[in-house]
Structures are given as structure tokens and as C-alpha cells.
């Protein structure tokens, strides 16, 4: 391989880790719902896309990136709340296939609604002035905006970890994931907890969408690849494991980065090979608990 210097290698490694945080950001909402509710949210990519469009809309109204950054997860999370209450809840206890299939249909509906409301044309969404440009990180120039994303992702993961591990709500969530029956018998309204988890998961998906908007084109189909990437990260990391999602996201980022350097056209294959290998060696994923689900 000519032209590959140590400097480039280090830069590539860093790029991979940064890309990993983008993967984590995109996967964490799915992972949360997947792991705690055992609902495979096939509409995850659609919520991500809705987040980007709500962001575009709010940018148009308020003209302020930061305001939309705060409002988007609230708006999308509220949408998630309504969907859980009226569409997903009737399906609990009917087996894992049904919520999956329902959200598959839901994704089609959400994408088409956005097409009707915003039109077929892509929407432009520029990087806010303060975060634009590249900074020298010693081995090369790196976009400031991506460094900002690393910060945001760290904050979100930390906040979620605190919520799940350190609050009484989190205790119920964790208990509910293991044995909803017992929790119910103890007199806890588990459905309320699931409602909140679903809302948080979709809210984070929406946030990921608006954060991705300045880097990627905002179009109604933008969620379809994200869904698959998020699945890979979640499954590799192990369901219901926040640590797993973070480690897996980073791992996938680095694997993709290294493949891009040496065999660039196989970059998208690499993550599926990684996923297949992990699943065959350790079917429950790197940090998943065995027997969490049938």
C-alpha cells in the first residue's frame, strides 16, 4: 500500500473513533428500546429522519440551531409517546414479531407523510457558523463539527447511564426488562415505564437526525441505512447493554475506517462481516446477557 504514512494511519484511526461516536449516537435510541422493551423498532430510521426534518422546520422558524437541538428530541419523543401508547402497547405479549412488523409499516407511513408535507426535494441545513471549519489535531485537519458530536454523544450516553443505573426509575426499568411479571406483581405500573423508555429512545433517534443533518443530505429516505447500521451496533454490542452499544459503535467505526483505508470499496461489507462473526462466536453479542430473550 503506497502513500500510507504513520500520520495517515493515526488520522484514520481517529476518524474511525469519531465515526464510531456517530454510530453510537444513531444506535443508542434503538438499543434502549430493543434491550429494555424487547421491541425491535423498525421505524428507528424514520424517527431519525423525522428529527432531521423537524430540525429543518424549527431552524426556519427560530433561525437558531441550539433551540432546535433542544426542541427536536422533545417533539420526536412526544411522537414516540403517542405511538407507543396507541400502536405498540396493544402488541405486548403477542410475541416479538408483531411490534417489529408494525414499526415496519409505521416507517413507510412516516416517510410518506414527510414527503407529503415537505416535498420530494432535499432540504439544505448548514453547519452553524461557530462549529464550521476544520481544526488541526496534530496529525491533520479534522472538522470541528465532528468533534462537537463526540462531546454531545458522550453527554447523552452519560446521562442515559445515570438515568438507568442511578435513579429509582432506572431500577424499575432494569427489573422490568428481566421480569415484567414480578415487577407488575410488586404493584409497579410497568406500562408507564415502557412508555417513557420508548419516548426517550425515539427522542434520541430524532436528536441523532438533527445532528446528522449538517453532514448528510436531508431527504425522506435518509433513515434507511441508519436503521441497518444501528442494528449492527446494537446486535454486536449485545441487547440492553449501554456499554455494549458504545464499545460496539467504536469497534464498528474503527473496522469501517481501516477497511476504507485498505480496501475502500468493501467498507460497507465490513460491518456485516463483523456482525456475522460476533454473532457466531457469541450469539448474545459482546455485552449481552444470555437468555435475556428466547
Amino acid at each position, binding site marked *: 500500500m503506497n502513500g500510507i504514512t504513520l500520520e495517515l494511519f493515526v488520522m484514520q484511526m481517529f476518524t474511525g473513533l469519531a465515526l464510531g461516536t456517530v454510530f453510537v449516537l444513531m444506535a443508542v435510541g434503538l438499543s434502549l428500546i430493543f434491550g429494555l422493551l424487547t421491541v425491535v423498532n423498525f421505524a428507528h430510521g424514520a424517527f431519525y429522519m423525522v428529527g432531521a426534518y423537524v430540525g429543518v422546520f424549527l431552524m426556519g422558524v427560530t433561525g437558531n440551531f441550539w433551540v432546535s437541538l433542544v426542541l427536536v428530541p422533545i417533539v420526536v419523543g412526544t411522537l414516540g409517546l403517542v405511538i407507543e401508547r396507541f400502536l405498540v402497547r396493544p402488541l405486548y405479549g403477542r410475541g416479538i414479531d408483531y411490534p417489529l412488523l408494525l414499526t415496519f409499516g409505521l416507517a413507510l407511513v412516516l416517510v410518506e407523510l414527510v414527503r407529503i408535507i415537505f416535498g420530494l426535494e432535499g432540504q439544505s441545513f448548514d453547519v452553524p457558523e461557530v462549529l*464550521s471549519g476544520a481544526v488541526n489535531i496534530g496529525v491533520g485537519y479534522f472538522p470541528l463539527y465532528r468533534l462537537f458530536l463526540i462531546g454531545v454523544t458522550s453527554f447523552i450516553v452519560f446521562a442515559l447511564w445515570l438515568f438507568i443505573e442511578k435513579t429509582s426509575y432506572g431500577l424499575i426499568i432494569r427489573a422490568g426488562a428481566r421480569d415484567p411479571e414480578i415487577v407488575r406483581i410488586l404493584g409497579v405500573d410497568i406500562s408507564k415505564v415502557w412508555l417513557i423508555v420508548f419516548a426517550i429512545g425515539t427522542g434520541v433517534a430524532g436528536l441523532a437526525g438533527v445532528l446528522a443533518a449538517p453532514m448528510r443530505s436531508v431527504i425522506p429516505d435518509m433513515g434507511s441505512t441508519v436503521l441497518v447500521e444501528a442494528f449492527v451496533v446494537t446486535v454486536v454490542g449485545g441487547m440492553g447493554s449501554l456499554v455494549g452499544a458504545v464499545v460496539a459503535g467504536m469497534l464498528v467505526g474503527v473496522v469501517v475506517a481501516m477497511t476504507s483505508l485498505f480496501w475502500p470499496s468493501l467498507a460497507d461489507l465490513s460491518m456485516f462481516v463483523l456482525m456475522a462473526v460476533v454473532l457466531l462466536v457469541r450469539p448474545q453479542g459482546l455485552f449481552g446477557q444470555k437468555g435475556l430473550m428466547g
Partner: protein
Amino acid sequence: MTIKNENMSSAGLSRRKIIKGAAAGAGVLAASPFLLNIAGAADDTIKIGFPVPLTGPYGSEAKEQALCAQMAVDEFNAAGGLNGRMAELLVRDDKLKSGEAAKRTQELIEKDKVHFVAGSLSASVQLAVNTICADREIPYVSISQSDAINEAKNFTKYTFHEAMNPHMTAGAVGRYVFPKEGKRVAFLIADYAYGHEMARGFKEAGKAAGIEIVAEVSHPLATKDYSTFLPRIQAAKPDVLCLCNFGYDQMNSLKQATSFGMKDQMRMVAPALLYNQRRAGGAAAYSNVIGGTNFYWGLEDSIPSAKKFVDAYRKLNAGAPPSDYGAYGYAGVGGLLAAVKAAGSTDADAVIAAMESTPYDLYKGEQHYRKCDHQSVQSVYIIESKAEADMANEYDVFKIVAEDKASEDVLRSCSALGLG
């Protein structure tokens, strides 16, 4: 092979049953009872099938294609049609999938009995439509870019390619850019036929200019995140970066390369710079990018046919000018109908002969179909994307900087295509 025989007899049995039930009379075995009579469709409307991806990521371009194709049909009808025979455009959604397009084209031919087919907005979809049409001897005018459709493997006498091909556009952009911007050239190539076709066009033009290729990175089609492909290019310190990708891939790679600060370090060029994509991507991402196009509405100042087309479109669309892909739809169907008029019939062979022999000027100056591969020979316009501050209004996105004149010399030779 016993299984084979079983299958065959069962197929034969069902067929016999049907013949008994559906077609009366004996001796039908020799003549086919189900023969589709394509030429003798009962009503005498001239029907043109038009499969384009109305849904999917390029829906806005496809809508433009259909709109402008309808304009061409309306103009033909307003001028009296073919001795009173009116034309009709049958638009179908191919969903940007070649399987769907193949099925839809079969529907158009079998059920709607179209005389001609035009359309498509993807290299792969047009090849599928081309196969279906050629097998059924229906002339097909492709309005989407591809080199492969001109090659012996896919070309038939029914195949026409109205759109530019990547060899033309990349070549034209290369001939303009390399002498001006420098010899160190890097390539970012979408890893599919069309991407590599564009790169080949650049390299061909680069040979004459004596370029040095300092990096060549191919990325999977429809990649969303380009960050892992960019450091390698940046490290090679090129003068020019050729983006050999299309549409949203181009937009995303451009946006992300800009955020890496690469626009200050090198000149970015793209073989096909799309009007709708530029408007969706925003001025900041595209500013100073040089590319090629078949058409930009600014041509109205210098070319009479362009002025006529732009004016007509504006009248129908509240003052908004037409886009490049819309213009393809207009020229593809308009050129076809002009040939129908010249041939005086809808007979496939007569229309093909007319298309081969008649130059046309519908929207951008004179064009003609090269005899050996039915590629439309046309000028390529070199454009530069304007910065926000230089735009007079929201439609004023490009500046025309040069014209690569229509000439068969810039195409790949007929023998290189395997066509004698």
C-alpha cells in the same frame, strides 16, 4: 431428466386446457392464439411509455422529467400531431429499481400497447428497460447517463441515448479544469459502473493534459459518511479532486469534504453538477465547485431554442426555470415525436431511420444521433457553482464558464464500443 419432463408436460397440459377454454377452433397450435399484436393497436393514439422514479430519492428530478416530457407531447398535439393523430404520455413509477422498471415496461408494452418508450433516471434501470424494449422491438430513448448502454453488449438498433454519457461530461470537465488548476489529481469514485465510467472519462482527458494521479479512492455506492475516505485524499495534497459520484453521494461527499477544510486546499470538480441537488444542498457546500451539465436555464441568453423552452416552462410553473433533467425529458420525447413526424408513421423502422438522419435543436443548440451507437452528440456546458453572495435570486445558482462543443470526436470511437 425426469423432473424436467414432468415440468414440461405439466406446463403443456395447462396450456392445452387453456387453449380449449379460451380459444375456439382447431389448428390453433401452429399459429399462436395469444399473439400480442403490437403494431396494430386498435386506437390510433401515439403512445409513449415513460417509466421514471417518481418515488425514491430522485423523485423531484423524475417529476421534472415527466413534466417536461408532457410539455413536448402537448406541443406536438397543439401543432396538429401526426396528421391529426395525437400523442399520449403514459408515466409510470419505476421506483428507481430495475426489477420494477422491467415489470412496468412489460405492462406498458403488453397492456397499454405503447409504440415507444422513453425515460429512466439510473444507469442500471435504463439497461433493464432497454433489454425489455429491445426484445419486443420497441424503440427506447434513454434520458439518463450511462456509458454501458452504448456498448455492443447492450446496444440494439432500438436503443437511443439522449442523455450525455459520463465519458463526454467527465472528459469535457477534465479538458477545462486540468490545464487551469494543476496536474496533481485525486479521484473519489463511487464503486459502480457509472462511477468508474466517469473516472475513465477524466483520465482520458488527463492523458492529454499530462496529469499525475496522486490518490484514487473508491467508496461504496450510497455511502452516507465519507469521513473515513477523506484523510487519504487530503494526505496526497492534490490540486484537483474529481468527484466521480452522483446526486446525493456527490452532495454528501462535498459537504463533508468542505467540513474537512478541503475546499481551501484543492479545486473540487464533478462531471455532472445537478441543478436540483445544488438547490437542496445549499450554496455553501457547492460554491466554487466546477462541473458539467447538459443544460442550465442561463443558456436562454445565448441560445434561441433554450429561450423558447425556458419561457414555455416558466409560463407553466409560476416563473420557476426548468432543470437539467427536466430538459432531458423534454428533448427525449420531443426528439422522438419530431422523428415520428418526419417518418410520417409510428412504424419502428421508419422512426429509427428518421432519428438517425435528422439533426434536432430543441433546447440547447443542435444535436444529432451518432449512427453507430445512437448516442446524442451535443454540447457539454461547464458551470461553476455560485456563492450565496453572488446569487441574484434563488434560481441563480450556476455561472456558465465554457462550452465543450458538440463533436463526435470526444466520444469513444465506434470500434472501442465493439460496434464495428
